[in-house]
């Protein structure tokens, strides 16, 4: 029988030494970090934050970056749309910077607004689902490798990430059910339809990439991408991109939320900060799927290393790639009209399904023939 962990082992795990061994190294500010580590309590906190798993959870790709991206992409989307539409977009909040903190101002306003729970709602679920939904949103971030920084290493990290991301629509359906209103029901049903329609091609494209790389460990996938995945299997990249558009309900597949038809669908009954939370779900999902796309197809944290930044270099490359994907997703909003539900379903069950099977075939071929090239 193996020995139980002694007190000394636990102390070892939470000791500063343990954190410092596996710390994010940033040569540029190394003297500052070294100085901070000397200070008793502050040093411990700095070491904890810079401990790679904690860094992944708190800074990148975790909470801090998620919040910054949310604030930025909402503003950027409005600004880009306005630019294409010959307008100016949000401008008055922090005018000299082009209204960049508009989303923050809106968030603050949401915060001080009353949260109205209407009579027919299932009060308990109505209030807890928007918060519970952060579980499937934040969990995948732990598995996403940014260069050398990764929260949890696992040979099945890609599979786990995809599985957890697929949970988000279930929560949205639950939100729609808890809202107990007509528009919410219609939106929920539409969400469920769309969920089945995009999830299968989405998973097929991911599987084809697993076949291409011969592994489901994202760290290894990034390492093996001497040639980016988008060149190895462009069809899978296309399918992944289109299904991402569907999954994040962007135009032309903005069917569950359709403002003009069903007034934001499942989220119609929310107000105040609760609306702020549910409104950002799609953007959070978009962030995760963009990270996933840049890891699977664009080489993740690979890129010319910047010696001064050390480990942060990979973080920056991944961030840039993910932002590029998000910007192209935001760009679609001003180009397309909304398809009808049946048209969207037809597109995904026929065209996209066919293309995804082609991508799977390409994956199989690559897997069988060129083990030496990438693996």
């Amino acid at each position: 029988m193996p020995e139980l962990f002694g007190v000394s082992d636990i102390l070892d795990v939470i000791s500063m030494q343990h954190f410092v061994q596996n710390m994010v190294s940033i040569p540029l500010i190394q003297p500052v970090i070294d100085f901070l580590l000397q200070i008793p309590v502050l040093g411990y906190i700095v070491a904890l934050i810079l401990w790679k798993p904690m860094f992944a959870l708190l800074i990148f790709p975790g909470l801090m970056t998620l919040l910054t991206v949310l604030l930025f992409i909402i503003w950027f989307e409005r600004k880009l749309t306005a630019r294409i539409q010959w307008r100016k977009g949000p401008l008055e909040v922090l005018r000299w910077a082009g209204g960049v903190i508009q989303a923050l101002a809106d968030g603050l306003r949401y915060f001080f607004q009353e949260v109205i729970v209407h009579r027919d709602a299932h009060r308990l679920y109505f209030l807890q689902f928007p918060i519970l939904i952060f579980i499937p949103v934040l969990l995948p971030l732990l598995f996403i490798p940014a260069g050398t920084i990764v929260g949890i290493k696992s040979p099945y990290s890609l599979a786990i990430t995809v599985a957890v991301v697929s949970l988000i629509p279930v929560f949205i359906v639950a939100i729609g059910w808890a809202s107990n209103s007509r528009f919410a029901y219609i939106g929920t049903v539409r969400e469920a339809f769309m969920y089945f329609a995009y999830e299968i091609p989405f998973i097929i494209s991911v599987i084809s990439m697993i076949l291409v790389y011969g592994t489901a460990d994202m760290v290894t996938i990034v390492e093996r991408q001497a040639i980016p995945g988008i060149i190895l299997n462009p069809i899978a990249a296309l399918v992944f991109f289109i299904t991402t558009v569907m999954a994040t309900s962007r135009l032309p597949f903005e069917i569950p939320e359709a403002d003009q038809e069903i007034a934001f669908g499942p989220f119609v009954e929310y107000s105040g900060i609760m609306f702020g939370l549910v409104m950002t779900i799609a953007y959070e999902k978009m962030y995760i799927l963009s990270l996933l796309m840049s890891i699977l197809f664009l080489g993740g944290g690979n890129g010319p290393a910047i010696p001064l930044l050390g480990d942060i270099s990979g973080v920056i490359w991944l961030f840039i790639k993910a932002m590029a994907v998000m910007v192209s997703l935001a760009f679609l909003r001003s180009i397309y009209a909304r398809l009808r539900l049946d048209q969207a379903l037809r597109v995904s069950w026929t065209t996209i399904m066919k293309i995804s099977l082609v991508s799977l075939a390409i994956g199989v071929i690559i897997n069988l023939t060129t083990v030496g090239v990438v693996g």
Partner: protein
Amino acid sequence: MTEREVVLDVPVQPPTDLFLPIPKKFLEEAYRGDDYVVLVGPQHPGSGHMRLILRIKGDVILEAIPDPGYVHRCMEKLAENRLYIQNIPLFERPAIMDTGNVTLGYVRAIENALDVEVPERAKYIRMILAELSRIGTHLYDAGILAVFLGHTTGFMWPFALREPIVEAITRISGVRVTSSFIIPGGVRRDVPWKTLEFVRKTTFVLEKRLKSFEKIFIRNPTVIERLKDVGVLSKEEAIKFGVVGPFLRASGVEYDVRAVEPYEAYDSVSWEIPISDHGDSYSRFLVRVEEIAQSISIIRQAVNELRSMPEGNIISEDILQEYSEVASSDIRGFFFKVFGNLVLPSGEFTSLTEAARGTLLYSIISDGESNIPYRARVITPGWYYLKGFMEALRGERLADLQAIYGSFGYFPPEADR
């Protein structure tokens, strides 16, 4: 100061039954069967307040019954209490952008009654104003169609494209939308050459920017997908249900009041009638897009014609009479003296105009003695094609309601008057 509760004992009972302007049998039948009765509106569904009562089986509309009148403003009754000249701003109100055509129709009815010959220069200026309004209205409707389809750029661009048109109307008449510029016998002011040149240049701006608009909205695959083969009205149906204007032409009928009974200077400029054989929502939209191109061509020809004409003389001498020497190029100072006590000979006088959305009929009945109309009848194109609109909905999906609504450019304030 202490707060105290005030109880108001008001004997008001909330209504217990829902009033629907449909027979009870219809509801009972629908509920007994497998159908649903769905009320769409009267919240603002895009372009005005109006209710549609739909009978639905599954996702398919079996029958559509309109419930218009939410923005009825008694235009005709109000007109009976006003001087003839005061009705011009009144009749402009229903159609936001279509000021040129709406005023032109009313003024032409008065001119018919008084048998006034309008000076050539005034005719061309009026035609330019009417065509500018037509382009503006078509762009407005395209914007509403786009917002129904969830295409935000398709909504913003036409409204931005209206801006040069509005600017041109401002320079001509001095006000952005309700110009009240066309008066019996001519127009209120002469339009200087500089303004006409701006109008001509504006048409090039429209042409250039409409090309981008065509790529991003008109020929956008998702838009084609949504509109094509939706809400089809065949040629026979369109004639039977009395559809007018571009919507009739989209079903393959070559009818345009401007061509059949030319008024103003439409017979001296060359232009084509765009028609389509499909009769679906997309061709209804495309016909109006092509009409914009035709209107642009008409405006350019009109400006070229005006170039060779001497300035001044824009109000008919028949109507100015003793003030014709001083007021023939500028009505200022003599407006009330000329039009204040305008009395029409007794009888009924009618004019047909091709407004942007279709045939517009004005009928004025005068008793021959008073300076107000005894009866004024306005039938707007929206009212004409409402039946056709309802028939186009039959057999379509509920989600296509918006697409068909937008393709007809149905504008409740115009139809309800």
